[in-house]
C-alpha cells in the first residue's frame, strides 16, 4: 500500500521537475519584453474601458501613449484633465488641457410637443424603428424614444423621462460618445460643458422646411434665421433649414433664446431671467 503512494509521489515530482526545467528555458526563449511604463499608465487610468478615448479599452490606450511617445492627441474623457495630468507626471510629458464635454439631446419632441399619430407595434429598439418608420409623432428626424442611448451608457448617466418620453443626460456624463454612436438619428451631440455648466443649443435636428416641421412638432426649428441675425458673435449658422450653435464661438449671451419663435433654443443652468412686464417695457422705451 505504502509503495503505491511512494511511486505516485516520486513520479509526479520527477515529472514536475522536468517540466519546470523545460518551461524555464522556454520562458527565457520566448520572453516578451514589455515597457514597464504601460502598467504604470494603465494603473493611473480609470479602468472603465468605455472607449471614449477612441481606443479599445484602457490598456490599449496606455500602450498607444507609450508607442506614440507623447500625449498629443490623447485624452481620457472618463478621468478628465486630472487623470491626464497624473499620467503626464508619471511619464514626464506634457498633457494639453481639454475642455470637459457632455452629451446633449437635441430633440424636444416630447409626447406633448409632438403627439403620437401612429403607434409602433414591434421590436423595442431605435435602430429598428428608424429603419421601419418616421416615428410616432411623425417627425422623421426626431427622437424615437426607445432608449437605445440608455442601453448603450455604461455610466448610468442617461435615463428616459417617463413624462416626455425623451432621454435626459445626468451630470455624471463623461462624454464617452457611446450614446452618440447608438442613436440612429444623430440627435445626441457632445458639446463643451461650458462655464458653470451653462449651455445653449438648438434642441432640434429637423432639416425639413418650416411648415412640415412645425406640423409634426410645435418646438421644431423652422429655419427662420432670426437667431442667426441676432447673434453678435456669428456663432449660429443655418444649414438645410436648421440652425446650429457653434459652442466654441458662443459666449452664452442668451440673446437668441427669446428670439426663437418656436422655443427651439435651449438654455441650461442659467439663473432665471428678470421678468420684464409690459408696463416696465413701455416706460423703458419712453
Amino acid at each position, binding site marked *: 500500500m505504502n509503495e503505491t503512494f511512494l511511486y505516485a509521489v516520486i513520479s509526479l515530482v520527477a515529472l514536475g521537475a522536468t517540466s519546470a526545467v523545460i518551461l524555464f528555458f522556454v520562458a527565457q526563449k520566448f520572453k516578451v519584453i514589455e515597457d514597464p511604463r504601460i502598467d504604470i499608465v494603465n494603473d493611473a487610468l480609470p479602468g472603465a474601458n468605455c472607449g471614449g478615448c477612441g481606443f479599445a479599452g484602457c490598456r490599449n490606450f496606455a500602450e498607444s501613449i507609450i508607442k506614440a511617445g507623447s500625449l498629443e492627441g490623447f485624452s481620457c474623457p472618463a478621468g478628465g484633465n486630472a487623470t491626464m495630468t497624473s499620467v503626464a507626471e508619471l511619464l514626464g510629458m506634457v498633457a494639453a488641457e481639454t475642455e470637459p464635454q457632455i452629451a446633449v439631446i437635441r430633440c424636444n419632441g416630447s409626447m406633448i410637443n409632438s403627439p403620437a399619430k401612429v403607434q409602433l*407595434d*414591434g421590436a423595442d429598439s431605435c*435602430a429598428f424603428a428608424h429603419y*421601419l418608420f*418616421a416615428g410616432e409623432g*411623425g417627425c422623421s428626424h426626431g427622437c424615437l424614444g426607445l432608449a437605445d442611448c440608455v442601453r448603450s451608457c455604461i455610466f448610468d448617466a442617461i435615463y428616459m423621462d417617463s413624462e416626455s418620453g425623451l432621454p435626459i443626460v445626468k451630470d455624471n456624463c463623461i462624454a464617452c460618445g457611446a450614446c452618440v454612436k447608438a442613436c440612429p438619428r444623430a440627435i445626441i451631440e457632445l458639446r463643451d460643458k461650458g462655464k458653470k455648466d451653462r449651455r445653449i443649443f438648438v434642441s432640434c435636428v429637423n432639416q425639413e422646411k418650416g411648415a412640415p416641421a412645425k406640423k409634426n412638432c410645435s418646438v421644431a426649428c423652422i429655419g427662420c434665421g432670426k437667431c442667426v441675425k441676432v447673434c453678435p458673435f456669428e456663432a449660429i449658422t443655418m444649414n438645410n433649414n436648421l440652425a446650429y450653435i457653434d459652442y466654441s464661438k458662443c459666449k452664452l449671451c442668451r440673446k437668441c433664446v427669446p428670439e426663437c419663435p418656436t422655443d427651439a433654443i435651449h438654455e441650461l443652468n442659467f439663473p432665471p431671467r428678470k421678468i420684464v412686464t409690459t408696463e416696465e417695457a413701455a416706460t423703458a422705451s419712453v
Partner: protein
Amino acid sequence: MKTFALGGVHPEEAKVSAAKAVEILPLPQKVIVPLGQNLGAPSKALVKKGDEVKVGQLIATAEAFISSNIHSPVSGKVEKVDDYLDSTGYRRPAIFIDVIGDDWDSTIDTSKEIVSEISLSSTEIIQKMKDMGIVGLGGATFPSHVKLMLPDGKKAEYLIINGVECEPYLTSDHRLMLERGEEMMIGVRILMKGLQVQKALIGIEANKPDAIQALTSLVAHFPGIEVHALKVQYPQGGEKQLIKALLNREVPSGKLPIEVGCVVNNVGTAFAVYEAIQKNKPLVERIVTVTGSNIQNPGNYLVRIGTPVRELLEKAGWNPETAGKIINGGPMMGKAVSSTDVPVVKGTSGILVFDQEESKRPNVQACIRCAKCVSVCPMGLEPYLIARASEIGMYEIAENEHAMDCMECGSCQYTCPSARPLLDHLRLGKNKVAHIIRTRKN
C-alpha cells in the same frame, strides 16, 4: 404533391374574398403617384405643375438601369411635384394629379377584344416592356424588362409563372387567373418569346382548384405551358421555393434564379405584359384585395395606381372606430401603414384591416431555445441567431450566418412560442449587412 424541401408553415388561409369578382373602383378626385415605385432607382419626373395629362401618358422616366417608367394613371392636371408621406411616414417625391374626366391616350386599345397574335420580336418585347413601365407585381416590384435581359453566358431554360399566392387573405392573383386566364396565358407566351425559352411552368397552390382547372383547360391552345398544382404550404410562392418545388433545383446562396436556368414572374406581371404588348396599355392599374376582420365587404378591386388607400377602404366598408392595424400586403410579409392617405402603388397586392383585438402582438418573452424557428425557416437559416446578432449590433455574425439569404417570409416569427420579434431584427440586420457590403465594395 409537389412542394419545397425545407421548413414552411401553414397559417390559416382565410381567403374570404376568393369568390368575389373583380370590381372597378370609381376614379378618385386626386391621385398621388410616387416616383419610387420599383425596386432600384426612383424615376425622374417629366411633368411640372399645371401640365395636363392623359391616362397612359409618360410622366416619369427611368434613368438608371434598374428603374422603370411611370405613366399617368388618370387624366387631369398636375397639381404639383412634391414630397408625400409614404406608408412609413418618411417623405418621398411624388406627382400629385387632380383628376378631370377619364381621357385615355389615343394609342391605347381599351376594347375587351383578345389579341392573340404576337407580332414583336424578342428585343422589341423587352424594349416595349421597359417603355410601358412593367414591374413585378408579386410585391417586390423588380423592373420586369431587366429580368428578361440575361447576363452574358447565361441561358434560360424555363419560364416559371408564380400563381401560388401563398399569403393568407390575398386573392387578387386567384381572381385574375379565373377572370383573365386567356389574356394571362398570352402574356406568358409573350414572356417566353422575350426570353427565348420553349417551356413555361405555372405553379398554383392546391387551394385554388377552380384556377387550376381554368388554366389547365386553356393549356391545349398554348404549347409549351404546363400547369402544376402545389401543396398548400407557406411560403410556396417564394421564388426559390417555387423553383425547388417545380424543378427540384436549388438556387445557390446569394445568386439569382437564372443560375439554375429559370426566370420567375408573377401571373399579375404576365397579364400586365399582355396588356402592354398587345394593347399598348402601360401599367396604370392593378387588382388589389381589400379584406380583414374590420372590412364588411371583403373584395377584389381594379384600382388606378395612386388612388389613396382610404377610397378603397370606404368602398369596402371599414370601421375606423374599431380598426387596429392597416397592413399593406399580406399578413405574413406586409407592413402596417401610418396613414390612410398613402396611395396604392404598383406593388400593392392587398390592403388588410384588422380589428384592434386581432392586431395586437402577444407579449414578448425570453427565447426558450426550442429551435422551432430553425425548423420552419425555408432558407435553412438560424433566425434566432441572426436576430440576436442584429439586436446587439454584431452585424458581422449576421453576415456570416447568411442574413442576406433571408427573404423576410416571417415563418420564424409566426411559429415562435415566445412571440419574439425575430423578423423585425432580421430586417434590421439585413438592412445593415447590405449597407456594410455596399460600403465594402466602394
